[in-house]
């Protein structure tokens, strides 16, 4: 009887301990804010930004002397961000009822962190750590989807600034990827819309936000984005995604083999 009681009590204690543990969050936005708080912004002058962007999109070679320090300084923030991209949801909790006054400070931080992620991938690739580089590029793609999630047009335009360099760099690296890496990249690409994001949904939300804000304050005026301009950006992203898919296709590999 004593043994049975002990076993039951031990079982209850284990159950109680499991209950006491806080449930892991599924909202990536919370983790991203933690990464933003730890992020050390690199200089924002035009020359530095252009160098970052050229390297992130694979247009220029990795420059350890000029960029290495910034990646090292942001290692922790980048790791938090890259882990968070694997979470299933991302709710930024935006107060759209405020209309044009809705704070969207996360987009600025996300832009800089996305850029740092791109240059980290370039560094890994330059060091020959291709599998790790692919992981970081794919994290960049997932991050862009999270940044855009539930957003209006500005969220998608900002997210696109992180998505495009990852697509371009992967397209450049595609000939060097092995079968497993190609499959990984292709799966990630199939998981996102053809034009990168759901632009129609963002435009709908844009109109809804404006309508709600006007109900609260009829004096509010804000221009609605021009549909043809939005279509042009969406088509550009569609072309970048297609270019990467083409670069990954076996036919493309056969052509290279000739």
């Amino acid at each position, binding site marked *: 009887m004593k043994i049975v009681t002990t076993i039951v009590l031990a079982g209850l204690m284990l159950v109680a301990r499991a209950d006491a543990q806080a449930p892991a969050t599924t909202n990536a936005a919370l983790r991203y804010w933690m990464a933003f708080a730890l992020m050390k912004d690199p200089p*924002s002058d035009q020359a530095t930004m252009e160098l970052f962007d050229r390297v992130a999109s694979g247009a220029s070679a990795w420059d350890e002397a000029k960029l290495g320090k910034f990646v090292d300084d942001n290692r922790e923030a980048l790791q938090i961000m890259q882990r968070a991209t694997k979470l299933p949801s991302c709710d930024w909790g935006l107060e759209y009822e405020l209309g*044009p006054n809705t704070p969207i*400070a996360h987009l600025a931080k996300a832009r800089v962190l996305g*850029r740092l992620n791109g240059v980290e991938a370039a560094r890994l690739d330059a060091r020959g750590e291709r599998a790790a580089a692919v992981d970081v590029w794919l994290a960049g793609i997932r991050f862009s989807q999270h940044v855009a999630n539930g957003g209006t047009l500005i969220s998608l*335009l*900002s997210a696109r*600034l992180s998505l495009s360099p990852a697509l371009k760099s992967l397209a450049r690296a595609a000939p060097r990827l092995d079968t497993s890496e190609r499959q990984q990249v292709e799966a990630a690409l199939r998981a996102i819309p053809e034009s990168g994001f759901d632009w129609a949904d963002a435009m709908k939300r844009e109109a809804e936000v404006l309508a709600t804000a006007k109900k609260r304050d009829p004096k509010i005026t*804000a221009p609605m984005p021009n549909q043809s301009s939005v279509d042009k950006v969406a088509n550009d992203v569609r072309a970048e995604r297609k270019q990467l898919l083409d670069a990954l296709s076996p036919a493309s590999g056969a052509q290279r083999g000739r």
Partner: protein
Amino acid sequence: MDDLEAKLREFRPRRPATIPDERLQLLRGPIWVAAVAAIAAVMLIASWIERPRPQPAPAATLGALTALALESPDQLDAALTRMSGTLLPDVHDALGPARQPKESQ
């Protein structure tokens, strides 16, 4: 006598040299330094006025950033980047003294 006259005619009238003013001599150096400094200051101010200054970052709001993206799409990226540096204090700097013992280990 003729010799003496000829000798005296060799002399020509000449303006006497100015009597050296020691106070003016002392001031000559500082006057030049002040003049050069004034010219340099004028040039510096002129170049500062003509220098293109970075655009102020727009407010981090839906209305301000959407307007920027629609009116000047080329400037959105730079504006977001500049804005990022002003949004959160750098925790590493804020915790600087507390981190020092750990770093020295």
